[in-house]
């Protein structure tokens, strides 16, 4: 019986590709954001509202990650925004390699902000660096108050948390302020916004934040 020392970082392949993506974004002067959150929390709706809110001077490009379908890409295309759909076919997250390949299909010489909408999931995407400069988590009031404590890493490593569907607060028996307090307790540096993608409330403040990051 022999014991062979290996010491191999099994996650390094993703990290190296993520660093390569990050260098690429920096060279091109692109703000890359990794948009995460539960299925249905409103990630695509936030993008739609952002484009509607007359972000005319900002040039966006989008990568859509889903297990299946190109529904989200179609929703983005309606705004004339360049978009690539990635289907993970059962994969629970995007990885840096998938993003790297998708980059080749986008007109990035003419892009200020690249939004990568991750697979709806509060767990796995937190483990995978894509090379983004900001992580944004969309949480909706209908998911309940305890999601931050149940999925701490999603919020711990995010730069911004968007509490969506605040138009539904009267029906959900949750406190938006309590959610905000918990979020800031786990991550004091988190920028926190309350929005409704239905009424448009709060969208302008989020746009201001995005502009300031450019």
């Amino acid at each position, binding site marked *: *019986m*022999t*014991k*062979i*020392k*290996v*010491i*191999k*970082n*099994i*996650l390094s*392949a993703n990290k190296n590709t993520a660093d390569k993506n990050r260098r690429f974004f920096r060279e091109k002067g692109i703000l890359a954001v990794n948009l995460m959150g539960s299925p249905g929390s409103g990630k695509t709706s936030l993008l739609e509202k952002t484009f509607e809110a007359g972000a005319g001077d900002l040039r966006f490009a989008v990568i859509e990650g889903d297990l299946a379908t190109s529904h989200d890409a179609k929703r983005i295309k309606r705004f004339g925004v360049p978009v690539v759909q990635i289907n993970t076919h059962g*994969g*629970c*997250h995007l990885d840096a390699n998938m993003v790297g390949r998708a980059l080749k299909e986008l007109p990035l010489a003419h892009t200020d902000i690249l939004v990568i909408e991750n697979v709806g*999931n509060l*767990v*796995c995407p*937190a*483990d995978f660096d894509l090379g983004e400069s900001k992580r944004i988590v969309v949480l909706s009031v209908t998911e309940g108050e305890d999601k931050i*404590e149940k999925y*701490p*890493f999603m919020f*711990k490593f995010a730069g911004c948390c968007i509490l969506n569907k605040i138009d539904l607060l009267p029906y959900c028996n949750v406190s938006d302020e309590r959610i905000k307090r918990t979020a800031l*307790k*786990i*991550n*004091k*540096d988190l920028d926190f916004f309350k929005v409704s993608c239905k009424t448009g409330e709060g969208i302008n403040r989020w746009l201001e934040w995005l502009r300031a990051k450019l």
Partner: protein
Amino acid sequence: MHELSLAERLWSTTKEVAKTRNLKTVSALKISIGECLAVSPESLVYCWEAITKGTLAEGSKLEFEVHGPSGVCKDCGKETPLEKPLYSCKACGSSRVDFKTGQEFFLEYIEGE
């Protein structure tokens, strides 16, 4: 939730090592794993068994060494174990920390003959 792809990567490394070191069978793999990864050892074992069935690593054991979270505090500068549930600095309680351990996944060694 992505244990299958991790098991596949473990397997490709194991195959390489077995080839270069002339192993006929592999009996165990030692893995050090961070507690904060979204990876369940139990389901990794399940995927490993499925992948290695009928190969030179069939029946091999995965042994885990689990590492708890530690980090460097951005407020007080100390390196400490991180306190649950907020993963905060043990020295000053700040939530602003850079993780040092808790998110790693290393193949440490392979046993075989």
